[in-house]
């Protein structure tokens, strides 16, 4: 379940035209969402509110052995976020829950550079009773750059400051990161090969994207390096229009190779699998995760159709703003009168292929619209891993005006035994025990 504050941040990014998926950090977002989803611990209640037009607040109480609370406030000078934000009563479950990330090819994703204003977002969250402060400032410097400063300040422990400078030119996204924690310095880059549709034209209607990214890290204080490189390919199956994502990442330092395959098999189900393999130690791991969405009654959906138009997923919103239909041949429409004739000729000539394109695209778009308009009421998520021998179960759903997520993690490894104890070998006695259990309630207005 995405927190309200996180949703505000994402709305801010959407509003200012920042593509979250075009970052190397989120290159494996789909499989992460499906395999390593977060499970709440204890009982957690969140009440969120948009107090004024520019400020948002969240109050959270959690009971995990002791009662903790936090107060969070966000101020942003970016107008028009309400188009992307909705209260927990109106929001769609697929917007509130993280699942399959549909990657929009960058050539379809253009944000208007004309009306860009330098906007910023200020976030502060104070935890009680430890009085730890999370502070964050996100500033859009220009259409291509964003500066993020995150700070964790606590009076008892050392404070950590992390700075992100991100530059996204569509085809390339570069990030420079510096963190005061262990003096960590990092650079990551993501390159999209299908920046324009003319390349890799196996199909004329090209909705696939191929991206290659890399990251390099160096901890100055502990002199430990890290690096990895990842290839991601997203496409839609031509027949059914179902999206699938493949990633292959490699850590050359430690010889770690992991490949994931995620596919949305229907509008209500996603399957992801991940295979890890270490070239040096020949250790391997196979993880599997899926989610199943259950839709509710149809009339609520129809009622929402009218009112909640702005609540539709923003990626679609963006696409709708762009003359998508003329994507293939807009360069042919060069003003002159006989161009129409040429167009007709072309239409006749390429009729079969155009028809094919249309069919493909309609497949995909039908699929996407069905996904968008579906009114899901709950989702079950399962993930398991062979090496860790665990099973994670998460249920997320809407009940009345609350967004509820409840989950547990079952494992058969002993809980309290530290990793470096010698009794490790004699564990696995077959049955699973809950290692973690929690319920989260979220209400926002």
């Amino acid at each position, binding site marked *: 379940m995405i927190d309200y504050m996180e949703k505000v941040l994402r709305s801010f990014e959407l509003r200012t035209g920042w593509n979250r998926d075009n970052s190397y950090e989120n290159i494996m977002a789909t499989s992460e969402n499906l395999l390593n989803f977060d499970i709440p611990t204890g009982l957690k209640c969140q009440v*969120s509110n*948009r*107090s004024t037009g*520019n400020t948002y*607040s969240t109050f959270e109480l959690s009971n995990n052995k002791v009662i903790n609370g936090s107060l969070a*406030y966000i*101020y942003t000078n970016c107008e028009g976020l309400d188009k992307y934000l909705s209260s927990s009563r109106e929001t769609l479950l697929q917007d509130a829950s993280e699942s399959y990330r549909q990657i929009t090819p960058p050539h379809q994703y253009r944000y208007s550079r004309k009306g860009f204003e330098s906007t910023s977002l*200020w*976030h502060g969250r104070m935890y009680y009773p430890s009085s730890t402060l999370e502070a964050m400032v996100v500033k859009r410097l220009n259409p291509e750059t964003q500066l993020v400063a995150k700070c964790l*300040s606590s009076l008892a422990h050392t404070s950590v400051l992390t700075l992100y400078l991100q530059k996204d030119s569509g085809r390339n996204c570069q990030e420079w990161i510096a963190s005061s924690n262990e003096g960590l310095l990092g650079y990551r880059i993501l390159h999209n090969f299908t920046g324009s549709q003319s390349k890799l034209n196996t199909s004329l209607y090209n909705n696939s994207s191929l991206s290659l990214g890399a990251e390099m890290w160096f901890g100055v204080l502990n002199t430990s390096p890290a690096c990895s490189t990842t290839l991601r390919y997203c496409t839609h199956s031509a027949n059914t229009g179902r999206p699938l994502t493949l990633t292959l990442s490699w850590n050359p330092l430690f010889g770690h190779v992991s490949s994931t395959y995620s596919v949305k098999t229907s509008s209500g189900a996603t399957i992801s699998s991940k295979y890890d393999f270490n070239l040096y130690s020949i250790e391997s791991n196979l993880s599997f995760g899926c989610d199943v969405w259950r839709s509710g009654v149809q009339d609520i959906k129809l009622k929402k159709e009218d009112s909640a138009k702005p609540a539709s997923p923003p990626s679609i919103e963006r696409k709708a703003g762009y003359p998508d239909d003329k994507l293939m041949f807009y360069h042919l429409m060069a003003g002159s009168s006989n161009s129409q004739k040429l167009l007709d000729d072309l239409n006749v000539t390429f009729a079969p292929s155009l028809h094919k394109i249309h069919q493909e695209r309609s497949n995909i778009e039908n699929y996407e619209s069905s996904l968008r308009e579906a009114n899901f009421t709950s989702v079950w998520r399962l993930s398991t891993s062979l090496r860790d021998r665990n099973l994670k179960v998460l249920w997320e759903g809407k009940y009345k005006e609350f967004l509820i997520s409840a989950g547990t993690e079952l494992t058969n490894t002993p809980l309290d035994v530290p990793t470096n104890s010698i009794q490790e070998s004699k564990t696995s006695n077959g049955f699973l025990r809950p290692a973690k259990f929690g319920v989260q309630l979220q209400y926002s207005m």
Partner: protein
Amino acid sequence: MAYLPSFILSDESKERITKIFNLSQTVAHYGWLPFVLYLGWAHTSNRPNLFSLLSPLPSV
């Protein structure tokens, strides 16, 4: 401050700088949320009262 050689900074000034640093950190720590709220208050046209700004409860 400890890594600076002593000929650059004397002990007292080092101590003073450390004190100032700590003080400013404390101020920033506790002043951050009021600052965010002030920004929200100052940039809202109708200048809402403090309670509606502070309260996370949506009823007001």
